[in-house]
């Protein structure tokens, strides 16, 4: 069943158009990867779906209902959570407070709770009371993912979670993905690392200059095909 869908989604920064009509579908339980060069519009896409940038109502559908252009604070309540690029933890909050604020003002039932986040990322449990800025890059990324999970999302949007991290740390973080999926969340990953993206995703979308240039299952896509979709002919 289609959980999230965008139809002809466009996005602008002032006069600059960043997305030119993106059609994308996320099925329940699926993991999608969005790849593409810098400036292709991948982050913009996630930010628009999350409500940080304006969108036409009919251009974003959740369970077939129009949610485009709703305020970000309402969209997260509907079950779409964004792990923003660059972690963006709250510096004046401790690690645990950062996790708690992920569920701000809501006490809905669901799989994720503080103990379960600490079980998922044991490194955070030991450092729960330190200021978030003292964490290593990998731990910060874990905290940012944990914070988004505390909202008990049906759709988890992850923006460049491997950016600037050592390969072993990236493996550690991606090791959490099966548990996250098992909790009932469907996932859209934006990834620079194509190998990583192809490995963990059910389907891949490639963006190029604000347009969709290629889509398919990783097994069906050839190296050459991806290369062309990524960089242009």
């Amino acid at each position: 069943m289609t959980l999230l869908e965008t139809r002809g989604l466009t996005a602008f920064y002032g006069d600059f158009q960043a997305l030119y009509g993106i059609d994308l579908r996320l099925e329940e339980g699926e993991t999608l990867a969005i790849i593409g060069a810098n400036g292709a519009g991948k982050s913009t896409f996630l930010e628009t779906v999350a409500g940080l940038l304006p969108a036409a109502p009919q251009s974003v559908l959740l369970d077939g209902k129009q949610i485009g252009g709703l305020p970000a604070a309402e969209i997260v309540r509907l079950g779409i959570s964004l792990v923003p690029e660059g972690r963006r933890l709250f510096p004046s909050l401790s690690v645990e407070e950062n996790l708690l604020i992920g569920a701000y003002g809501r006490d809905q039932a669901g799989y994720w709770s503080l103990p379960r986040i600490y079980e998922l990322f044991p490194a955070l449990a030991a450092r729960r009371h330190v200021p978030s800025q003292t964490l290593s890059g990998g731990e910060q990324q874990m905290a940012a993912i944990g914070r988004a999970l505390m909202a008990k999302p049906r759709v988890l949007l992850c923006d460049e979670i491997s950016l600037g991290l050592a390969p072993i740390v990236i493996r550690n973080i991606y090791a959490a993905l099966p548990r996250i999926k098992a909790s009932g969340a469907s996932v859209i990953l934006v990834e620079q690392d194509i190998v990583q993206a192809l490995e963990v995703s059910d389907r891949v979308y490639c963006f190029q200059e604000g347009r969709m240039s290629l889509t398919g299952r990783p097994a069906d896509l050839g190296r050459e095909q991806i290369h062309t979709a990524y960089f242009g002919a």
Partner: protein
Amino acid sequence: MTAWINTLLQGVMLGGLYALFAAGLSLMFGIMRLVNLAHGDFIVLSAFVILALSVALGLDPFLATLLAAPVLFFIGYALQHYLLNRTLGRDILPPLLVTFGLSIIIQNGLLEAFSADSQRLKAGAIETASISIGGGLAVGTMQLLTFASAIGVILALNFLFYRTELGRAFRATSDDPEIAQLMGIDNRHIFSLATAIAMVVIAVCALYLGMRANFDPTIGPARLLYAFEAVIIGGLGSLWGTLAGGIVIGVAQAIGAKIDPEWQILAGHLAFLAVLVLRPRGLFPRAGQ
């Protein structure tokens, strides 16, 4: 010697009043980066609200403040919701202009309603009572009460900020308003609550201002100046620093007045300038700011 200790003591007590002036300003700036140029006029407005309630209902000023606080809470919420939220954005000029305009409107509105006469909140015997603390020293009950209230207000605000879910939302919104929305936080509501709470702090402040000295519709801007100085001496974003800032001004004024009564006000401003030269970020700057 006793005389000097007494001077210091009086200065510290006076610092409590300045910390109360500053707490509301610090709160609004800390959460929204909103510099409220009408802050001093809000204090005077609140003092008139308390005066009006206490005269109309024949109440003691303390009880009148209890009644005024919820009224001011809603005024604060509405003011932020309908007016000040619209001025917030990347540009820092609109909130300055709008609050500057509010300052003028409040002063003239109060002149219309209450005339230019000096007013005072009459608290009875407590105004002149004092407590002896030995060694020939005594502090005024009112002065002590002011100082204790300043500490009480700061403790309460710290509890709110660091021990409650709302406080977490205040800090998160202050850190990064964009990401705060992703947590399900409605920034505009958070900002309106911040101003509402600041108005309650202002009510407490107005109570002591009105009981300790005469006030009239034009004295707001001078209170704003003391509030700014206390906040900046203390270091932006630190409430205990604000108390320290208030005390620095209070002690400097007391010492100045002891040397020559004409020096009282000037000494406070000189202390502020000295701190600004020696520690431009204040005595207790918040880390990472």
